[in-house]
């Protein structure tokens, strides 16, 4: 229930290829910057007392990188992904569609006899041999991309 409400008030936008919540993103960027930059600057000040300047800057950079990674870990804890994961069961319909698409592409699935022995064994082990053999009769006779014969495809 509360999760539903939480979802309804989400302000989703797509940034850099994935969906985020604007408010969460704002904080995530602030946390990344606020942890990263001051860590670097403080480390630079500190290391300058201890070692030569060039090396001090390099070490400080390393500290800055670690701080950014830490910020990433904190952000990951604070803000869960805006994604839904569905465990997809394999189903016959999508198999048939895939076969139909392959037939449409090249006109035929090709004959099992053309396959190297290893590939044929692989198909058999996967339980796909029948699927590919079933449309063979039709596939060999059909020249170009004719829409797939439903029955032949479904075996």
């Amino acid at each position, binding site marked *: 229930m509360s999760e539903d409400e939480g979802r309804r008030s989400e302000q989703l*936008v797509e940034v850099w290829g994935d969906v*985020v919540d604007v408010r969460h993103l704002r904080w995530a960027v602030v946390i*990344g910057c606020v942890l990263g930059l001051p860590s670097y600057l403080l480390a630079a000040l500190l290391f300058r007392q201890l070692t030569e300047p060039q090396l001090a800057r390099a*070490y400080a950079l390393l500290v800055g990188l670690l701080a*950014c990674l830490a910020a990433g870990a904190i952000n990951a804890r604070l803000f869960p992904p805006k994604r839904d994961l569905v465990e*997809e069961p394999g189903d016959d319909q999508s198999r048939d569609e895939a076969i139909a698409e392959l037939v449409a*592409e090249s006109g035929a699935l*090709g*004959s099992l006899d053309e396959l190297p022995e290893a590939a044929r064994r692989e198909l058999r082990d996967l339980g796909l041999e029948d699927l590919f053999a079933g449309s063979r009769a039709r596939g060999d006779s059909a020249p170009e991309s004719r829409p797939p014969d439903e029955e032949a495809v479904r075996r």
Partner: protein
Amino acid sequence: MIATIGIALAMGLLGAIVFSAIGLVSGTDETATLAPLTLLVVLVGVPPAGVLAFFLAGAVAKHMTHMIPTALLGIPGDTLAVPLLREASLLRRLGVPHIALHKAISGAALAAFIAVPVAVGAAALIAPFARQVTAAAPYVFPLAAVLIAYFSRGRWAAVAGLVPMVLVIAALQAFVTPLHGSSLSISFFLGIAIGPLVADLFALSSPFARQSMRRHTRRTFFLAPEVKGWTGWFPNPLKVLDRSQQAATGASAVLSSLTFVVSPVAMTVLLGEAVGARIKHSYHRLTSMMAVKNGVTESTYIAETLIPLVAIGLPLSPVAAGPAAPLFNAPPVYTIDTASGATHNLHDMLSPWEFLGFGLVAVFVAVAVAYPFAMNYARTAAAWVVRRLSQEAVIGTFAGLILVISVYEGGLLGLLVASTVGIVGGLMNKLLGMHAGVQFMAYYTAALTVPALLG
């Protein structure tokens, strides 16, 4: 010598682990991740062999684990996984996503081992002409820029876009150099590499632009079911591929290791389709194309890095100018003198034999880490990333990194340069399809050609 090998092994291992993880996160572009992290490794003072091993192991590992989201979730792991999406999706719908994954990563392992010696050999053939190329560098870069721009998604628009991009970079450089006391380069790189993110963040803060970015639903990911097809820990890649697939993968790896100016995506599509067209049986075509295409993603990356690096020392390929840029130019550690084109980078610090040796070490380590990981934990890892690693966290980390690295190089000026180049480059990238590789070439044109022609 033993210490050097130890460093190469250790840095290779680090690169392999880090980029095996990054490969799992879909949409993590190679340039945006490999370039900044390699840069960090250079700047903190890791010796040349370690830098090379880190980069190569990272690239090889990423192009293995990028197949995990591609095969199991049906979303491309990164830019170079896009050409594999269709075949992977078909195999997934046939109920055998694990076959797509296994064929692809076995092809990758095979191609990576082939690519290193072939690329170093090809470099040895080009090396005698290195001096002429270096002397002509001010004229070679604009030519390469036009070529790479034309082959980007933007075609002529990207070629035309070179003019304003070069001018913006040259003008910014002229502005910051006297203020900072020396020229900047890392900030420019960073701005280009991370441009699309900068542009998105700017757009997001504009109520007007935000409208087009709104989404009303979460993204739904469909995770393919677990299919246990084999037992053991480290299946022999050569057994996963049948003989004809080994031959096709090997041949396309050799071929793609000899060229270094074509973009990796184009090469992957080209060789993949060439092989696919010769195979009659649909299932065999799908699985062979997985192996060949993913093999080519490895071999082009390795060749386009190693050939210019070993032979010339100037970043004259799309990969060398993009993800591998810090191997060529990362001041103050590695430099390219803009007046003469003289280099002081990995090219001058390692011999061809060392490139070969450390290159093979890197590939070996990457395969040893990424291959069994992808074989055994692909589904668990894919589910974990989707459920636990938010895009917010990824963006927050990168925002921090841009800030830290640009301030490291140039203080406030560095930050201003990175964000200015970021928004200009990012918009050109999104609007014109002018990718980061083209923009890196614009940077070199601005640095080398503009002074030579107009100076």
